[in-house]
């Protein structure tokens, strides 16, 4: 003990401050940053993303990716290269940025010597032009390289300075930069939203005119200032205000609190109800897709998040819901050669309960053989089940009934009181109501005896059984409820498109739903919303991402597991012991 403290106090004085600089670490991280920057260039990301400007004429999304990579790694290098001296932070950052830039410069140089396109098809002249500030190559190669190195160095030094700066200032600047990038990315979306409305001119001042791309320069500056200010305010007063609001709210009587919550939810609901009028057709359609994923996410969240039963074939129930709706309502289930085989001609509302029920029973049916399985084994079997359903839908055997590879066409749209609700704007309301109902059921179940039993099974199956929980019925209930929600989503999906093919029900849908739950936070109901927005809405809005969707998924998931394994909006623990009406000294809160 004595030796330990001695060595700890002695270390800084015994080793002079000059030795603290860990240039090897800085160099290594810079090297990694360079490799990443070259990688995103080689796979074509930089060029694809170049089509979208963050700040019009100044920096594109493609350049932002490269800059962000060099900047982030330089920041990391600055952080790791020294523990004490701000000067070494700056030095480390600069070194890292420079080395990253050297890697990029090398890449540019090699691309001039050898035709890299024979192997890497994406290394096009336009990519090199992006990386070299549109210089005339090869004549201006040296000038381009120098500019590249300088840029890297400056980026690195800025990152180092930020690392050396107090955390408060750092947060303010980071949030400013993040907001500029975020609004720049979504600029096109915002422009379409305000087109033809009163605030179009004001928005144009920030975002640039309708024909321009990205933010205007003064817009970017004002967003940066505004976001920084906001961050400053929230940092200085946010905690205090939040606490104040919380304590004031906790001081209210329980009924008032409940009414307050109800009013807030009602307002949110009404705002959402009006939303499609502003969104327009395309965005409403995106919102509907997000809504269907939320429905499925809420269902899978019961199975995976609550009960801990890893289900990789969840799309099967979506398919079952869709196919039941298809077969029941299609005006013509054909053999694909123009011959109509049969038509039941049910309405959507007649077929909906059937679709949900069939999905529910399918869920229970799948549940029975996998009752004794856990973890990996369960995942593999459910994965197989998902594939079986898809292949059955594709098969010739069932072709007379469900159309084989051609799928089913002529599915009835949703009609209520003579109105067709299958256009994106009306459908939004249907999806919204479905989400509200399903969310409500999921939320009610979470804080009940059933929900606790699910969570207990997730935590420790054996002990749950020893607590008197019937594993068979509890697990089957989870599978059934999850499947029913998914069946509902599938039924709406079929009516939305009025035609379905087996291709819509591939394995990747299951993975998407699982990923959105993981990103949002396992077992968290608001997490499902956030996850769906992040993983379904964003790629839909940023079309450039679609091509790299899997790569982005992978990176995001790895990052999540490293830095925020509990998800963006983790499951809240429900406070049950201490109620406002109970006066217990809060010793545990100290």
């Amino acid at each position, binding site marked *: 003990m004595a030796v330990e403290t001695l060595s700890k106090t002695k270390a800084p004085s015994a080793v002079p401050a000059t030795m603290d600089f860990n240039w090897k670490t800085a160099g290594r991280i810079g090297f990694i940053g360079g490799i990443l920057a070259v990688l995103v260039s080689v796979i074509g990301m930089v060029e694809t993303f170049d089509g979208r400007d963050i700040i019009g004429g100044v920096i594109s999304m493609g350049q932002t990716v490269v800059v962000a990579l060099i900047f982030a790694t330089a920041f990391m290098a600055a952080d790791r290269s020294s523990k004490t001296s701000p000067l070494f932070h700056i030095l480390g950052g600069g070194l890292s940025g420079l080395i990253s830039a050297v890697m990029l410069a090398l890449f540019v140089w090699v691309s001039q010597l050898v035709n890299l396109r024979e192997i890497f098809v994406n290394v096009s002249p336009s990519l090199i032009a992006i990386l070299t500030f549109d210089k005339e190559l090869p004549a201006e190669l040296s000038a381009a390289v120098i500019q590249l190195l300088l840029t890297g160095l400056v980026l690195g030094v800025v990152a180092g300075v930020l690392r050396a700066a107090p955390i408060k200032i750092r947060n303010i600047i980071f949030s400013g930069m993040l907001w500029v990038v975020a609004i720049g990315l979504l600029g096109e979306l915002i422009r379409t939203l305000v087109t033809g409305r009163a605030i179009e001119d004001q928005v144009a001042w920030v975002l640039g005119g309708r024909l321009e791309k990205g933010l205007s320069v003064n817009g970017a500056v004002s967003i940066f200032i505004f976001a920084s200010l906001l961050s400053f305010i929230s940092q200085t007063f946010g905690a205090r205000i939040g606490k104040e609001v919380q304590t004031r709210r906790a001081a209210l009587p329980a009924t008032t609190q409940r009414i307050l919550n109800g009013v807030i939810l009602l307002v949110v609901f009404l705002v959402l109800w009006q939303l499609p009028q502003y969104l327009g057709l395309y965005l409403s359609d995106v919102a509907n897709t997000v809504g269907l994923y939320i429905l499925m996410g809420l269902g899978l969240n019961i199975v995976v998040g609550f009960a801990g039963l890893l289900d990789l074939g969840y799309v099967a129930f979506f398919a079952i819901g869709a196919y039941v709706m298809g077969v029941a309502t299609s005006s013509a289930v054909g053999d694909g050669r123009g011959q109509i085989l049969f038509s039941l001609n049910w309405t959507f509302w007649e077929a909906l309960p059937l679709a949900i029920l069939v999905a529910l029973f399918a869920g229970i049916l799948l549940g029975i053989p996998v009752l004794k399985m856990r973890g990996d084994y369960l995942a593999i079997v459910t994965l197989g089940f998902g594939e079986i359903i898809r292949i059955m839908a594709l098969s010739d055997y069932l072709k007379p009934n469900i159309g084989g590879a051609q799928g089913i066409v002529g599915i009835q749209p949703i009609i209520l009181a003579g109105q067709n609700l299958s256009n994106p704007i009306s459908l939004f309301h249907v999806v919204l109501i479905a989400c509200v109902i399903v969310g409500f059921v999921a939320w009610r179940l979470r804080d009940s005896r059933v929900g606790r039993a699910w969570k207990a099974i997730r935590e420790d199956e054996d002990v749950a059984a020893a607590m*008197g929980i*019937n594993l068979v019925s509890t697990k089957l209930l989870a599978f059934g409820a999850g499947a029913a929600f998914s069946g509902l989503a599938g039924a709406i999906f079929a009516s939305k498109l009025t035609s379905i093919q087996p291709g819509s029900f591939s394995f990747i849908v299951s993975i998407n739903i699982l990923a959105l739950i993981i990103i949002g936070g396992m077992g968290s109901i608001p997490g499902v919303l956030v996850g769906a927005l992040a993983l379904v809405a964003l790629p839909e809005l940023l079309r450039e991402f679609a091509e790299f969707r899997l790569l982005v998924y992978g990176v995001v998931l790895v990052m999540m597991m490293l830095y925020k394994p509990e998800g963006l909006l983790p499951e809240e623990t429900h406070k049950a*012991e201490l109620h406002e009406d109970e006066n217990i000294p809060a010793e545990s809160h100290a």
Partner: protein
Amino acid sequence: MTSTLIAKGVTKRFGGLVAVNNLDFEIPEKSISSIIGPNGAGKTTFFNCITGFYNPEEGTILFDGHEIQGLAPDRVTRLGASRTYQNIRLFANMTAIENVLVGQHPQMKNGFFDAVFRTPRFNREEKAAVEEARRLLRFVGLRGMGDTLARNLPYGAQRRLEIARALANKPKLLLLDEPTAGMNPNETGELTAFIRDLRDTLGITILLIEHDMRVVMGISEQITVLDYGSKIAEGKPTDIQSNPSVIEAYLGRGAASGLKSAKQTTKEPS
């Protein structure tokens, strides 16, 4: 005196290994009994046979008049037997009070539709359950810790929470698997008093597996010694302390004869 648990000829084999061998065992009602024995003697296996984790190959176990061998764990629990575990097995990512609420599962009736529609039955049951859970937390000395995640509780508190969870089932028989493992002498003393209190105030029959001889000798009315799955001795603490075959099982044949004389001179009052 009636018996809460009667085991007759219970045998549990794992392949060629006989973990519990033809064991006859009886626990008088409202008693505190202990099972002791060297590592691997089959104590926990016998526990698992009682609680339905294992299905014994032979023999019968009568609990409160019901034959329970081969029943699923949840059925045994519903009959009124609760247990704790050698290495604490709480629901780590649930709060303390939720753990206790799960313990009340068999006592409650509300299901899917009650939960969705918040029926009067649901509200009544939930309110009573939370009330009861708070009471149990206070009873085991965890007042104010109910909203803490179980995994964030200190070790001693986790042990006590496990007991509170077991008590939530309103058990007739409580099986404690090494409740004082990893505790310091102070905590052990407190827990021993607490266990005795459980029996005295709630009238619960208690069966312990324990390695700490001071605890075992201090609170047990009946001790059963297992070795290689068989019962080698049974009786009051004083009888067990001087039983040569017990000493032999713990310390080996040579030590047994040597210790016998020493033991008699330094006999502790218990």
